[in-house]
């Protein structure tokens, strides 16, 4: 005979506004096996938990049902409380009467009845619960950081400085990411390269960090503490150990007219190249798509000139597998391809560029040496129009969110321009100016007041070229939406920040969830911002949503701390909600017949063959056994097992069966 305790939470008004909590507590008290039931303003609060603990001790409860919010929110909280009161934490279940009831139904009897139903279901379930003990698994104290932008760099350094091994994987030939492309950074206008490159070098030289550039993650197996990560090291066609990085090859390469990705196509590079002067590692790779040798089968100039004899044309991609205890996703973001806006004529008119291209123009190490010149004729533009929200906050274009960083960098661009072209006039078309952040509003003010940037509130409808000028047509909504037309020399589009291409595939490879925009999804929007739903995989930076540098760095450090905490123990305790094969007395031993159909159904190769032998060592029977280190508790085997020989703890056949019984027979 069970002694269940039912604790109904008002959650302030969140539940009690539409559900009669007293009634739920009262009626659940009438259920068979319920020894104690009560309702309380905030069950999760200290007094709430104390009330619960006292009830457990006082009434010798052997099971607890907390009727409150989603178990995805507070299950750990209440299970911990039970444990502290001496009750096995897995004897605690939660009835979700907030997200699944009070918040989605109007005040009324039907809503209260539903709450009562949900409680009854969980009461019946908890009667079938079994005391379980956490599973201990070893932790590999190595982290894989995917992405070598500022977020990845920050995470890697923080983890490495905690004394743990880090493997950084970057798909480009150099780490640095988008930040290395920036000229100056808001709101301080300090040089991006100057603050970033020391960190890049630190990564390269850190004893705890192994760096794989020009590499991609192609497989993730295993589970928290015990991941196996497959990395494809794309062939660089050089022997990094021998190459001295003298750069002679890059000067001699006959292919000189390849648009430079780092310069966003504003400059050129050779086929064997180092993406930018401060690249880390500062060693070239051969771009096989453009290399004469790979196209025509002859050339090999680089090989001839290389003093170190480091060129390896026959080098092949290599796939290595590393073991890791945790993974940090820091794959960053991308900007919307401006050809997204035919009306703005990007691609058609050379002088319509995007923000990143402007960064390169403004960068001292950029194609123009830091002078703002038109891509078309190299002239210094006297009038520049900056178009904010190019794509962002535009349901029509399919992007409803605010890219967040554009307002700030547009203001920065205007300033940079003004500082370089004193007689020039910057215009900014904007919807709203969002400058939340330390010193941000002040920064925008400076752009407007000190640098006389013309801010025009309104959208740009079209841009077209007329005798060497770009005609920008828009409307000024603050002046009664009267039409505005500006003859500009150059237009800069603050294109929306979007998820990196390949993000979806990577998410699927790593088995983490992602949102409608293919940004990786956090486990909880407020309380678990750097965790994913997959234990042991964390998020850093703009792969989660558009973020500026300080935010990315903060998130990266946050993720690093999560990893460090995970690595702080040699063993990690896992929830025992896994599959088990039943065992019985001889001569049956188990109702498993050893058909092993469960073997192929298991996503984690967790099914093993167990031979049952008699005293003479002869095999009587071969049955399935679950490896509790590998089993993740999906239960697919359970649904497949004809004899019901395999069952899953926490969602056992007894439990789900009785839940259905309880739900439908009221």
């Amino acid at each position, binding site marked *: 005979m069970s002694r269940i305790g039912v604790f109904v939470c008002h959650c302030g008004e969140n539940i009690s506004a539409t559900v009669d909590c007293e009634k739920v507590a009262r009626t659940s008290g009438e259920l068979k096996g319920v020894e104690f039931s009560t309702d309380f303003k905030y069950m999760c609060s200290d007094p709430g938990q104390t009330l619960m603990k006292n009830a457990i001790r006082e009434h010798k409860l052997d099971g607890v049902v907390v009727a409150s919010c989603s178990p995805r929110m507070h299950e750990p909280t209440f299970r911990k409380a039970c444990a502290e009161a001496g009750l096995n934490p897995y004897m605690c279940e939660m009835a979700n009467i907030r997200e699944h009831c009070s918040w989605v139904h109007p005040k009324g009897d039907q809503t209260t009845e539903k709450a009562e139903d949900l409680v009854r279901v969980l009461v019946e379930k908890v009667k079938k619960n079994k005391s379980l003990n956490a599973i201990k698994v070893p932790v590999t104290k190595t982290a894989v950081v995917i992405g070598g932008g500022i977020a990845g760099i920050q995470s890697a350094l923080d983890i490495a400085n905690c004394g743990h091994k880090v493997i950084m994987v970057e798909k480009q030939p150099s780490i640095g990411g988008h930040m290395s492309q920036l000229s100056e950074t808001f709101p301080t206008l300090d040089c991006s390269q100057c603050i970033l490159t020391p960190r890049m070098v630190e990564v390269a030289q850190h004893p705890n960090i192994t760096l794989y550039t020009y590499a991609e993650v192609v497989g993730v197996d295993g589970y928290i503490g015990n991941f196996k990560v497959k990395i494809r090291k794309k062939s660089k066609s050089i022997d990094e150990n021998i190459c001295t990085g003298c750069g002679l090859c890059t000067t001699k390469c006959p292919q000189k007219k390849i648009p430079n990705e780092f310069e966003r196509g504003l400059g050129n590079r050779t086929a064997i190249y180092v993406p930018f002067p401060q690249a880390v590692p500062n060693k070239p790779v051969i771009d096989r798509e453009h290399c004469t040798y790979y196209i025509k089968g002859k050339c090999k100039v680089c090989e001839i000139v290389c003093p170190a004899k480091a060129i390896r044309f026959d080098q092949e991609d290599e796939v290595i597998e590393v073991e890791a205890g945790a993974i940090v996703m820091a794959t960053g973001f991308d900007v919307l391809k401006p050809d997204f806006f035919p009306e703005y004529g990007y691609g058609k008119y050379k002088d319509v560029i995007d923000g990143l291209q402007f960064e390169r123009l403004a960068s001292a190490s950029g194609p123009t040496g830091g002078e703002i010149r038109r891509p078309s004729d190299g002239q210094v533009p006297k009038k520049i129009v900056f178009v904010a929200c190019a794509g962002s906050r535009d349901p029509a274009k399919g992007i409803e969110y605010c890219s967040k960083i554009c307002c700030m960098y547009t203001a920065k661009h205007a300033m940079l321009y003004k500082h370089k072209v004193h007689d020039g006039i910057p215009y900014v078309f904007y919807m709203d100016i969002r400058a939340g952040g330390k010193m941000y509003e002040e920064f925008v003010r400076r752009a407007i007041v000190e640098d006389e940037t013309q801010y025009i509130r309104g959208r740009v409808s079209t841009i077209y070229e007329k005798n060497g000028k770009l005609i920008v047509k828009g409307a000024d909504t603050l002046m009664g939406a009267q039409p505005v037309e500006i003859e500009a020399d150059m237009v800069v589009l603050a294109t929306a920040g979007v998820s990196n291409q390949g993000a979806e595939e990577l998410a699927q490879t790593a088995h983490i969830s992602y949102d409608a925009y293919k940004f990786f999804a956090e486990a909880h929007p407020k309380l678990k911002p750097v965790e994913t739903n997959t234990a042991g995989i964390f998020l850093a930076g703009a792969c989660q949503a558009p973020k500026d540098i300080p935010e990315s760095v903060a998130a990266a450090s946050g993720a690093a701390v999560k990893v460090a905490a995970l690595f702080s123990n040699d063993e990690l305790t896992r929830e025992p909600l896994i599959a088990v094969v039943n065992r019985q007395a001889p001569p049956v031993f188990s109702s498993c017949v050893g058909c092993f159909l469960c073997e192929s159904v298991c996503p984690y190769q967790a099914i093993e063959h167990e031979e049952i032998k008699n005293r003479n060592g002869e095999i009587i029977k071969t049955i399935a056994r679950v490896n509790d280190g590998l089993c993740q508790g*999906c239960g697919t085997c*359970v649904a497949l097992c004809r004899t019901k020989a395999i069952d899953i703890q926490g*969602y056992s056949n007894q439990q789900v069966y009785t839940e259905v019984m309880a739900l439908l027979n009221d």
Partner: protein
Amino acid sequence: MQEFEPKIVAFVCNWCTYAGADLTGTSRIKYAANVKIIRFPCTGRIDFMILMKAFENGADGIIVSGCHPNDCHYSSGNFHARRRWIVFRNLLNFAGIETERIQFSWVSAAEGLKWADVVNNTVKKIKELGPNENYKKASVSAEVNEEGASHE
């Protein structure tokens, strides 16, 4: 006579649809109260027999929902489930049991609105279909089949 309020059980996976339904709540989107959720780790865990039990015990409709293909938290549970349902629906249909009473859906953790739609549409559909007499009349509570009684 008052309107028929169908009993509908939803078997959902913990990672996508359960979280999606949480989001529906967090977003305060309203939906019919007829549907009650039973939480499973994964659609792969959902045994066809639990669906039969639901019908046997008087469910008028059933919702089975989990992660979209490729999004399964366990990578393939929903793929196995999908095969199971393809076969099971075939069988039910052949046995003369209305498959319309089971609504399958993929609802991700981000699709709070979709969950509300799935629920409301299912409730609407089941109301049109009416009570699940076919299955109920054979259920435990019904008079036990005295010999020959069923012929009368």
